[in-house]
């Protein structure tokens, strides 16, 4: 992540303040990082209500566990994004489990509404063209696909292999190469932005 501009608070110092119980710092850290976390959660979950729930869980956990943040292991932004991703994917998997195993005895319409969470929402699909405009768009299609399936749809490596009909080893290699390339592309963007 880019270093804080001179004069602005660094996100790391905000996390340290949160760990000390500073509620205002928590509010400022939320303003700084929640849109990033929410953008990701929304892409994973699509359902705005579930996404708002997960966002709240993520930041409540951040308030409680700020003292465990270890700057040597990554930026606060990455710390937040990883938590948001884990929570969103957990929720997505539990919704899928429930959709598979739970059939409402009386109100089928509610059960089918619940399924909406996974139906492609035209608004989101259209908006997701935004993905192509990110560094992700600079990846070869095959590498891009494995990253999208894992990051935004919560599929495991073997699920991706099944979905694409490719050997697991190919999926693993593509994932690694895709992330390496993405890293280069992001770095390029940052350089050209400065």
């Amino acid at each position, binding site marked *: 992540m880019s270093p804080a501009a001179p004069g602005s608070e660094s996100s790391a110092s905000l996390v340290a303040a949160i760990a000390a119980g500073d509620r205002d710092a928590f509010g400022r850290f939320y303003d700084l990082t929640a849109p990033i976390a929410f953008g990701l959660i929304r892409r994973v979950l699509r359902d705005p209500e579930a996404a708002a729930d997960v966002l709240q869980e993520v930041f409540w956990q951040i308030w409680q566990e700020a003292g465990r943040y270890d700057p040597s292991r990554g930026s606060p932004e990455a710390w937040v994004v990883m938590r948001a991703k884990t929570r969103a994917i957990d*929720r997505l998997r539990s919704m899928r489990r429930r959709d598979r195993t739970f059939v409402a005895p009386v109100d089928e319409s509610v059960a089918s509404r619940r399924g909406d969470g996974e139906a492609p929402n035209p608004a989101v699909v259209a908006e997701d063209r935004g993905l192509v405009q990110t560094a992700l768009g600079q990846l070869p299609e095959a590498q891009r696909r494995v990253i999208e399936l894992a990051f935004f749809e919560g599929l495991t490596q073997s699920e991706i292999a099944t979905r694409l009909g490719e050997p697991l080893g190919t999926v693993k290699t593509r994932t690694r190469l895709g992330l390496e390339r993405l890293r280069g592309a992001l770095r390029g963007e940052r350089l050209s932005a400065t």
Partner: protein
Amino acid sequence: MNRDEIGELAAAYALGGLEGEERARFEALLQARDPEAVRALRECEETLAGLAAALPEPPPAVVKDALMERVAAAPAAARPRPRRRPRVFWPVVLSGAMAAGLAAVVVGWSVSSTYEKRLDALAREADQLRAELNAQQTVIAILRDPATQVVALAGLPPAPGARARVMWHATAGGVFVATGLPAIPAGKAYQLWAIAGSNAPVSAGVFTVDASGTGSLAVRPLPGVASVNAFAVTLEPAGGLPAPSGAMYLLGKS
């Protein structure tokens, strides 16, 4: 393990898609602070964070309001003290396992799979409780938000004694509760409609009532609807229709 293999494990782990034995292997490397594994994971996580940072979306204001309230209510003394991660001394663990031999490994596998199942069940339960708690917090946050509309619905000729109430927020959704509605004939259901301006009514969901004529419905945010002028309930074929067709049972204007 070579660099590429560690890179593959780190990439899959960062994306949340590493399972079973490979996951355990990579977590053991992290626990042991293997420099290559730590570096590779850090790089992958920063890359994914960079990707997410390119796709921001403003969260609904109710989330921050609810969080700040929870934070304000949390007693300072209850804050967990910063905790160092417990250090597991892996060489000791590993040599112990080796010395114990194959039998212990086999027993260990079956015990760990039993525990995995229990952990899985506990995780599911925690997930459910968390979802319930969140649903309630959402309701409280909705109630406290000045932008929330509260609309009372009164019974119409088919059900003069019926009453209902909708608490509705454009981005957070809302709650609908009704009492005194007649039992639903077979193959039918009540459907709630939101009417905004001169637009056609938008379905806000279908619900049933219990023996006492009480029913409720969680209302999701309605696409493209910022403010509702009226809510109405009609009797429709089970499953609901895209536009109202049956008799109107309840109506309330905001």
